[in-house]
């Protein structure tokens, strides 16, 4: 059902999921050859930026849209509950980004100096789960769809810009490095790139703990909001 409800947004989805992250990656890949940057490094960044662009740009907005009174009432005409709708939306977006990951990941592993396949895969799965939680959390927190549209675009841009997705962490000054470590996306990149043989930005386990704690906090909030059965109650 969720796939079919996205039909009308096909072009928007194509731009957010494919064109935007790919255009970044394309430009960087062109300059990478000249600067001798690793393709594996850039493509792993491409995977994470695709996830941010898709989940924050579209999924979070879908969740905010779902919280609109009319949409809630429309879903209430079906024999499904609010948590079921939220889960189905999440699964839909995971299925949307999965083909990109399946195509790009072998290239990442192929060009890596050394790769622990299992740990790379785990890093990607944790990244998907973290960004899913972040998007649902933001989608549930933002009530106004029009404001959400602006905030989520801006936040995607900030998360991508202030993380070493397409530039090298090593060459930055130490103040900027500390600032980047606040951004959870830096930690997601860390847990994906260390198993690919890149130098750690910080210990991989610190990144796992940081991301894990944020996931627990967000899940706590999400479960509280999603389990509220009186779905129209907070609207008024």
């Amino acid at each position, binding site marked *: *059902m969720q796939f*079919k*409800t*996205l*039909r*009308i*947004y096909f072009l928007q989805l194509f731009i957010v999921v494919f064109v935007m992250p790919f255009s970044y990656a394309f430009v960087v890949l062109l300059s990478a050859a000249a600067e001798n940057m690793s393709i594996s490094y850039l493509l792993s960044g491409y995977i994470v930026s695709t996830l941010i662009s898709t989940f924050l740009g579209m999924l979070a907005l879908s969740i905010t849209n779902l919280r609109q009174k*009319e949409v*809630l*009432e*429309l879903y*209430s*005409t*079906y*024999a*499904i*509950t609010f948590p079921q709708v939220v889960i189905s939306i999440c699964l839909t977006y995971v299925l949307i980004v999965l083909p990109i990951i399946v195509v790009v990941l072998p290239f990442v592993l192929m060009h890596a100096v050394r790769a622990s396949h299992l740990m790379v895969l785990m890093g990607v799965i944790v990244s998907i789960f973290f960004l899913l939680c972040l998007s649902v959390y933001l989608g549930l927190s933002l009530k106004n769809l029009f404001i959400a549209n602006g905030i989520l675009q801006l936040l995607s841009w900030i998360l991508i810009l202030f993380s070493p997705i397409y530039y090298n962490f090593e060459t930055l000054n130490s103040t900027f490095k500390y600032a980047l470590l606040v951004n959870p996306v830096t930690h997601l990149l860390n847990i994906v790139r260390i198993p690919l043989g890149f130098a750690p930005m910080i210990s991989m386990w610190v990144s796992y703990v940081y991301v894990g704690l944020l996931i627990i906090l967000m899940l706590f909030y999400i479960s509280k909001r999603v389990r509220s*059965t*009186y*779905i*129209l*109650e907070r609207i*008024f």
Partner: protein
Amino acid sequence: MSDVLTVTNLTKVYPNGKKANDGINLSVGEAEIVGIIGPNGAGKTTLLRQVLGLLKPTEGQITLFGMDVTKNPLAAKGQVGYAPQYPLFFPSLTLEEEIGFALRFKGYKGQTYKKKLDDIIELLNLENVRNYFGYQLSPGMLKLSLLAVALAQGGRLFILDEPTSMVDIVTKMHVWDTLSVLSKEQSILIASHDMNEVKRLCNRVYVLVDGKIVAEGSPEEISQMLKLPCTMKLMVSDVEGVKSFLEERQGQFVMENSVLDISVDSLDAAIELITEINHAFSVTYIELEAPSFDKAVIKLMGDKHA
């Protein structure tokens, strides 16, 4: 007749302090059509949303199929067909898909699914628009699509919030016939502004004003509740002649274009007057309702508002 739905002393106060429902008592029996009628903002939709478990009651009890909705708000899920007031739609789903998903969620598959889908589409005369997307449908068609989803949802109770508003009169009559047939086996709770709809369909009616029930009974009982004058609309071949005739008898009347709107004290007096006028001036059109359900409801609403 056992009750499918019982609402006891239900009160709903919104966070802004507005009391939308105030001590409401209501019941819907098996195979019964019950109407809730009231002006805009009377609290009809709030009442229905509480029954559906979408809003939390402030006080009172709602029992649906023997289950306490206030304790188990999901009791209505899957057991009640609901058609909301507004013409809501999924812009990316065709009408067939919208109804189809309701059937799939209920577990229909294969040939049973196809047959049920075709039956519902045929029942509501939606064959011509079955492949139209939500945004391509008129508001009237959207209301019918919501009704179709409610029918697909099935269950022992249908809760319909102004089901035929925005629907043309021919389709409206068809929907009323469909609901009448449906009510032989299922119960229906309708909130409506349409007095004809309520009069035509409902076994019992609750008049809701400012969140309170001000009258309850069959449409006939509500009509007889107040001693209202009997009114009739007449068109005659000689309007001036009838005007003089009524003035001579000091009758109460208003003339709008060529239609005479006459008020008399009782039905007997009305019949006697019509006979006399027809004998002397030949009546070409007559409209008489006595006692009038519409006027009784309007009077009840007006009195409470005042």
